[in-house]
Structures are given as structure tokens and as C-alpha cells.
């Protein structure tokens, strides 16, 4: 669905690249996470893929279209949910969606159904200017589904949303993916990436450092650990043991035999920890 080869982009047309030699492929039906801290080149890459930025160097194919010479028809297949909400504040939620419905040449979704889907039912005829930040974000998210996109670009889809709404949004993303929609998810939130993505790419300073599935990354870079809480001399003690090292395994058996165990659970490395390990950079 997306094919990127040797992509470079410089805002000043010089050697200061915001994106350097990026290459990746995303097959149809995959949720691909594009992860990195602010200024890493996530939005620049996404901008080029969606035609908001011109392609300077490299080969980019999106939904079967060469991005070098973008055809407007390409946008029938694409949905884009922006990080910053961008809806007409003087138009109601329904008017906003109804207007965008008319800008596509394919069958579109019912505005009221989408409004309901993102939890804004009852607000159809309220002007977006009266919405909270989170509500505007949900309307922007709903708009990105209006043309039943085959390829869906999501930029920080759960930012600024309360946990319950964020969970609903994640469910919608999973639901769309089940229908075969390919998703390009740009985020610096490792938890949502871990929950949703089939594969993730780590990007730092414009360079893709690694691409793999979260599961494989955890196996490769994470340690298999067991955290145990037990009573020792009237106090609660906590220790972490490796399930790989022989010495730790023996020590764990000793603790189980000797002490009264309060709790015991396995602990795997988070995607964020792996990111820091691989790139040497945090996500802040």
C-alpha cells in the first residue's frame, strides 16, 4: 500500500535533511507505527506521503499512485486525521462533515453515523467553535473516515482525549483495520503503538533506526524478568530475577522455598525502553 525508497527531504533545499534516506514498505491491511520524538521527521514523512509536502528526492508510491506527480484521485483512497484539530469553527459538526463528503468522488459515510461513532451524538447541530479541544479532535478523526479510506493516516489520534474516549478511538481503529484498512500511525505514544501496531519504525533525527513488530522487538531487546514480593523478617522485600540466567533461576527457587510470597509476576521491557535502548534517545 505504501512503498518508500531512499526518501530525503530538506526544508531549505540544502544538506540539512529533516528526513534522511528513509526506506520502508507497508503491505495492505497492516497497522504501521511511525514512532519518534518531536522533530524526528515523523510529520515531514507523513506530509510527503499525503502530498502536503513536495517529494524532493526518493521514490514514494502511495495507494498505487506515484507521489512525485500526485493525482487528485489518490485522495479518494486516503483518509487523514491531523494532530491539530482543523474543522470550521463556524459550522456545525454535521455541516463540517457534509461539506467534506462532497469533496470526494467515492461513496461516503453518513455524517450522523460518524458523529455518533466518535461519541458526539446530540452535538450534530452544535457549531464546532463551541466544542472542547477533545471534541474537535474527535470530529477531525471522524472526518478522516468520511470517504471510507483504504489507507488511513492517523497523527497522534488519542492526544488530549480522556482514557475512556481514547479507548473508544482505539477500538474504532482496530475495527477499521479488521475491514482491511491499512493504517499509518504517527505517534510519540509508545503505549498506543504497542497496543495497535503490527510493525513499528523508530525514527530519530530524520533517520529510521529500526523497523519490526513490537513482539519481536521485545523478544530481541527485552529481558525476561520475574518480579517477586515476599515477607522477610517482618518486612516486605522486592527482588527481580532473570528467567534466563542460571544463577537467578536458582536464587528464585530458594526465595520461593524459604519465604512467604506476597506477589510474583513476569515483567517485559516496554516499547519505550526498547526505543531508548536502540536510539539512545528519549521520546520527550
Amino acid at each position, binding site marked *: 500500500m505504501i512503498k518508500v525508497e531512499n526518501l530525503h527531504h530538506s526544508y531549505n533545499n540544502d544538506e540539512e535533511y529533516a528526513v534522511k534516506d528513509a526506506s520502508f514498505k507497508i503491505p495492505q491491511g497492516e497497522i504501521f507505527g511511525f514512532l519518534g520524538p518531536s522533530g524526528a521527521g515523523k510529520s515531514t514523512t507523513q506530509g510527503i506521503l499525503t502530498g*502536503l509536502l513536495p517529494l524532493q528526492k526518493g521514490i514514494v508510491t502511495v495507494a498505487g499512485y506515484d507521489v512525485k506527480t500526485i493525482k487528485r484521485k489518490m485522495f479518494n483512497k486516503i483518509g487523514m486525521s491531523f494532530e491539530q484539530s482543523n*474543522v470550521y469553527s463556524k459550522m456545525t459538526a454535521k455541516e463540517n462533515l457534509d*461539506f467534506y463528503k462532497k*469533496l470526494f*468522488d467515492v461513496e461516503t459515510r453518513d455524517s450522523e453515523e460518524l458523529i455518533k461513532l466518535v461519541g458526539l451524538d446530540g452535538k450534530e447541530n452544535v457549531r464546532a467553535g463551541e466544542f472542547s479541544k477533545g471534541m474537535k479532535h474527535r470530529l477531525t478523526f471522524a472526518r478522516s473516515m468520511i470517504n471510507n479510506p483504504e489507507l488511513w493516516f492517523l497523527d497522534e489520534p488519542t492526544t488530549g482525549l480522556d482514557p475512556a474516549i481514547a479507548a473508544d478511538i482505539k477500538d474504532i481503529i482496530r475495527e477499521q483495520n479488521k475491514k482491511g484498512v491499512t493504517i499509518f500511525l504517527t505517534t510519540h505514544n509508545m503505549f498506543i503503538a504497542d497496543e495497535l501496531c503490527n510493525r513499528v519504525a523508530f525514527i530519530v533525527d530524520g533517520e529510521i533506526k529500526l523497523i519490526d513488530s513490537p513482539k519481536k522487538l521485545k523478544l530481541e531487546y527485552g529481558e525476561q524478568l520475574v518480579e517477586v514480593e515476599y515477607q522477610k523478617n517482618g518486612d516486605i522485600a522486592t527482588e527481580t530475577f532473570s528467567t534466563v540466567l542460571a544463577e537467578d533461576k536458582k536464587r528464585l527457587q530458594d526465595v520461593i522455598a524459604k519465604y512467604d510470597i506476597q506477589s510474583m509476576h513476569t515483567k517485559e521491557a516496554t516499547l519505550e525502553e526498547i526505543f531508548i535502548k536502540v536510539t539512545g534517545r528519549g521520546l520527550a
Partner: protein
Amino acid sequence: MKLWHSFKKEILLATRGFYFYVEIAMAGLFLFLLLFVIPENFDHRVDEYLFYDVPDSAWGYFESELLEMDEDGSAEVVEIELDKKIISGSLYQTEENNYYVLDDQRQAISLADSERAFAGVIHMDELGEVTYTYYMQGYETDRLRNIYAVFHNESMDVLESAFDAQDVQVLHEDQVLLSDRQNILPSFLTFNGSLMGMFILASYIFLDKKEGVIKAYAVTTSPVWQYLLSKVGVITLTSLVTSLIITIPVMGTQPNYLGMLVFLLGTGFAASALGLVIASYFDDITHSFGVLFGLVIFLMLPNIAYFIPTWDPIWMKYIPTYAMLEGFKEILLPGGDMAYILMASFGFFIAGLVLFLFANMRFKKTLTI
């Protein structure tokens, strides 16, 4: 169809916004000024204060001369304020002058001083010799002073024969002039229809930039030029409506409304496209204000030449609003020059097209800013 939907959306946004009503209110204000403040024709008559120091027997002769010139053939007794006192005098009105005849020489001179006007004292001695003393402000031209000198030092016979010898040919006998009120209209139409359009279009774009909706539009199948053209369309339509609000009550059926429609489409398109170009270089109206304000001032310069025909330098004619003023004037005049209107409209349309294409290129490049 997408362009039509975008246009409808822009109309909806405009009617829910502030700037649309600013334009309508401005048109209403201009109309109010034209109908209730600005007279049909300004009073160009110059005040002159006269004192006749002549015997009663001779006054009858001078008075008959004044009455002969007076528009209604009778003197009007008037009260004039001088040094916080009310004095009386007789007023004789001609097409060009208000002659105030006073009872006291000092009053005439004092009024000339306080009113920055002209005073004359006509004195006749015992021998019947008449002398004229003029009190002027000191800034009068040599030409005027020479006229007075010639007038009183040359015999009337010589002057009359010189006047008679002058051959005057009228080139346009059927020429119709606009009244002073109507003559102001081209200036208002240029300001309201075109310059306001440029300013308001830029404001609409800045509002959209703030809301980020241009980016959302850019990822649809509708090209950015349609988004820009729909904005231009709304501005042009508003210009058309506001221009008619001003023109119809003042001019009635006299103007060439078809010509006006064509001209407003051309000028409105050019001014809006200029607004688009400016808006493409800035993020918000605050940063662009200096450029917009400077440009409006520059484009208003031809107004000076319009109202002061003696100051009409060649370079002024290259400022587009000069052609706008002339075009609107031709539209308002009965039998105005249609060829000029069409040529100017075409010129503005071409200029607008170049600016529009440039703005479109700029917006495509700066969508992520």
C-alpha cells in the same frame, strides 16, 4: 460541482463571520454619507465683503449693478457674527460669489481678516471719481493681482473688444457632467468594492490558516485552486452587492449596470488575487498589517488626482486604482466609454489571473506552514 460546494460553504462562513457585516455596514455608511451628508453639489461661491463709500445718489447705480448680477434679483438682509457681535448686511448672490455689503468699512476689513476672505472698499469723491481698494490675504497669485491691475487701468472699451475677439469653440456640446455627489461615487466604489475586498479576503485566509482547514482541504480530491477561487467568488459577490447598495439609491437607472457587472468582476478578481498573494506570505493578519495598510495607502493615491485634476502626474496613471476610478466614472456617466470599461476589465482580469496563479503556487508550497 466541488467548486460550487466550496463556494456555498464560503457563503455560509461569510454570513456567520464578522467581516461580511463590516463590508455591508461600510456600504451602508457610504450610502448614508452620500444621501444625507454630502450635498448634491457643493457651494463653490466665494465670499466677498464690500463697503460702498459713495453718496446716496450714486448708491442706486451700484446697487442696480449688484441686483442685476443677483440670482433672484433681490438683496437678502443677513446677520453676520463679528467679534462675538451680530452685525447686519445685505447679501447679493451670484453663481460664483456671495457679496456682503456692509455699513462700515472697518467691519468689511475685519471680516476679511477673520474669515480669510476678500474685502473691497469702493470710494467716490466729490468729483465723482471712483477708487477701488482691495484687501487680500497675501497669498493670491500674481495672475489675480494683474487682473485687478488691468481691470482698473485699461478702458472698458479696450477690454470689451478683447473679450469679443476671443474665439471660443465648444468641443463637446452634449457633455453631461456628474453632480458633486455622484462624482464621489467612483472613489467609494473603488475603496469599498476593491480595496476592502483585498483586505477582507486576506482576513478570511488568515482565519482559515488559524483553524488549519486549508490542510484538511488539501487532502481531498478538490484542488487547492478551487478553495482559493471559492473565496474570490464570495468576495466578488459581496463587492457586487455592496456596490449596488451604494449606487442604485444615488444614481437610479443612469449607470451602465452591465458594464458595472463586468468591471466589478475584473477589478474584484484582481484585488482578491492580490489579497491572496499577500496572505500567502504571512501567518496572521497582525504580521501582514503593515504591508496591507501600506498597499491600501499607495492604491488610494489616485484619489488625490481624481479630486484635484490639476495634479495628475504621469506615474499616477500606472497605479491600478487610477484606471478603476476612471472606469467607474465611465460606468456612471450616460453614454460612458464602453470600450474603455471592457478594456480595463480585461486588463484587470489578466492581472488577476497572473496573481491568482502565483498565489495558487505559493499556497501549494506553504500548506504545512
